[in-house]
């Protein structure tokens, strides 16, 4: 792609030259016609003048008189001398007189009016006029070659100044284009001068209205990049920070195991270290899930999923230590299907059920149900845990927040993953206290048309 300046320069110079050329062509054609017309009038006038001057009957009456030849030849230095050629013929075909530059042969055979003819190798435009009383015919001719020379000279006299003006015009165009593109140049300079890390918005202030949208768009883009980077940075910082505490615990426990003198103490330390490893690997898993969610496209493929089957898959792959057999599935779950993205639903359901199992005492239950209320359909997960303390309802949804009633294996990411996954799938999460007054009820809310009763069930 050629530069904007070269492009503008080429277009301007080409169009200016074209206009100049057209102008010249017009002047040339017009000047030729005008001179033709003017010189024709001169021919006519000259013929009439010669005719009026010739004595009546005189030259014609006496055939023995010699031919009158006017004196004079070409005068040096005068370009348009002797354009006119004149012959006077008697009606009986005798040459009565002629001008010095005229050929001896007849200029035209036409009795009257204009005609063109080649005489002695040169083209003449001839006007013939006759006087029937004096019985003479006057032929006045112009050398056409000379006529054209005259027009050419006229045009040339215009071309010479143009040859000086055109380069000056080109220079002026070049300067104007440079000046006109100056704001763009400035913006480009300030852009190329900034480092890769500099994402501060460009100054819109004095920029012209044509490039303002471009600068605004760029600033918008900068803003987005900054936000994305900030998000990434804080995520990485949080992740690193969250890894440190379990790692510190792990290290301390391993050191105790290495130093312990009592076997019981060593066994306990190793047991704690094992728990720490479990928790850290779960944290890593959750972090991976979170970063996958952050990267996934906003809208995914909805499909009809039977709730009981989906929850069964989720509990079947869970660690036995969580005692997944405590999950009870209501009939409403068994005979309902939901239209949702499978992966997102699995992620949300797994985290919610895991949370519920972790917080429920070993003899408690986790109850799954599905209901429809007006425009909303709810899939509910109820547990017998301690619930969410007052004031933490909003906080629990934040990444890495671990509330007062936290479990040893919690990463603080579970509910953040659930809300993000459900948001991607076009659903919502609501947390509330169940009717029994204790525990927690997590509701996955979708629009009513996305939940249907299965006929087979």
């Amino acid at each position, binding site marked *: 792609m050629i530069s904007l300046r070269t492009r503008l320069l080429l277009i301007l110079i080409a169009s200016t030259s074209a206009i100049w050329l057209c102008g010249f062509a017009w002047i040339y054609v017009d000047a030729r016609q005008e001179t033709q017309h003017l010189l024709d009038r001169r021919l006519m006038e000259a013929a009439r003048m010669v005719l009026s001057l010739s004595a009546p009957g005189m030259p014609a009456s006496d055939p023995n008189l010699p031919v009158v030849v006017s004196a004079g030849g070409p005068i040096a230095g005068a370009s348009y001398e002797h354009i006119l050629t004149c012959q006077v013929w008697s009606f009986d075909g005798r040459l009565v007189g002629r001008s010095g530059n005229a050929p001896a042969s007849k200029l035209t055979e036409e009795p009257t009016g204009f005609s063109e003819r080649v005489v002695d190798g040169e083209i003449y435009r001839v006007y013939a006029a006759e006087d029937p009383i004096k019985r003479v015919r006057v032929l006045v001719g112009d050398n056409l070659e000379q006529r054209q020379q005259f027009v050419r000279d006229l045009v040339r006299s215009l071309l010479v100044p143009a040859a000086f003006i055109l380069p000056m015009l080109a220079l002026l165009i070049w300067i104007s284009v440079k000046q006109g593109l100056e704001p763009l140049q400035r913006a480009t300079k300030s852009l190329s001068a900034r480092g890769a890390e500099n994402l501060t918005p460009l100054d819109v202030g004095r920029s012209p209205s044509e490039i303002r949208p471009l600068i605004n768009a760029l600033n918008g883009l900068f803003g987005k990049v900054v936000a994305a980077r900030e998000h990434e940075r804080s995520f990485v910082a949080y992740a690193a*920070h*969250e890894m*440190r*505490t*379990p*790692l*510190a*615990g*792990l*290290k*301390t*426990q391993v*050191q*105790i195991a290495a*130093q*312990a003198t009592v076997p019981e*103490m060593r066994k*306990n*330390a190793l047991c*704690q*270290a094992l*728990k*720490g490893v479990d*928790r850290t690997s779960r944290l890593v898993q959750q972090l991976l899930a979170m970063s996958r969610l952050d990267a996934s496209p906003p809208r995914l493929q909805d499909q009809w999923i039977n709730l009981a089957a989906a929850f069964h898959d989720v509990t079947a792959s869970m660690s036995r230590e969580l005692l997944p057999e405590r999950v009870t599935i209501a009939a409403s779950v068994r005979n309902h299907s939901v239209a949702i993205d499978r992966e997102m639903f699995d992620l949300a359901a797994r985290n919610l059920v895991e949370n519920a199992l972790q917080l429920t005492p070993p003899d408690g239950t986790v109850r799954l149900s599905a209901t429809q209320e007006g425009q909303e359909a709810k899939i509910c997960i109820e547990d017998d845990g301690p619930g969410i303390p007052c004031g933490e309802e909003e906080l629990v949804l934040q990444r890495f927040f*671990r*509330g*007062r009633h*936290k479990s*040893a294996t919690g990463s603080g990411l579970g509910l953040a993953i659930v809300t993000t996954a459900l948001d991607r799938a076009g659903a919502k999460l609501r947390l509330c206290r169940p009717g029994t007054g204790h525990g927690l009820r997590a509701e996955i809310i979708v629009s009513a048309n996305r939940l249907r009763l299965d006929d087979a069930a």
Partner: protein
Amino acid sequence: MRILVVEDDPILLDGLTTGLTLHGMAADGVDTCEDAYAALATTTFSAIVLDLMLPDGSGIDVLRHLRLRNDATPVLLLTARDAVEDRVKGLDEGADDYLGKPFDLEEVAARLRALDRRAQGRASPKLVFQSLVLDPGSLEVTLNDKPVHLSRREFGVLRALMLRPGIVCSRSQLEDQLYGWQEEVGSNAVEVHIHNLRAKIGRRYIQTLRGLGYRIRIEAP
């Protein structure tokens, strides 16, 4: 040396309390600010290990609360954040030392000993009384340059007495220094430890003041 550990991560809390016990300290663990306030109200600690991020508030709040009461107990801050501002803020709020996670158990113990030494205005890390030398770092005691093997509790009793020779330590004060809340203290546990100590280092160092407690005898026997 009685230590309070305030840390919300259960595995790390368990590791710290157990690990500090291995280093001859009696450690109590709590995992919320609220519990920390309760512990500080009832017990005197030699030092506090304080995590910054707690579920019901910040460790800084606990620190402020402590310093507002004009309590000069040394505080070692633990934090997963390693930004300089965090450290500066913690130290400016009255913390005495700072340690980033993950850390070495040895280092925590060493820093706590250093904090304790500084709090008592001692120059030497070792406690020396006549020919009796006690090294809190290596948990070793020598008498006339010969090593004496003491149990963890016996070491604790001797250390508590040797900190201020001639000053009386009551039985309950000694119990506080030796046992955490979770530990069962027998009614005559301290007497037993004193008895065993006398058997190992000789009778002349520890004096019993009936009804008051025990002290290192400074006058000539």
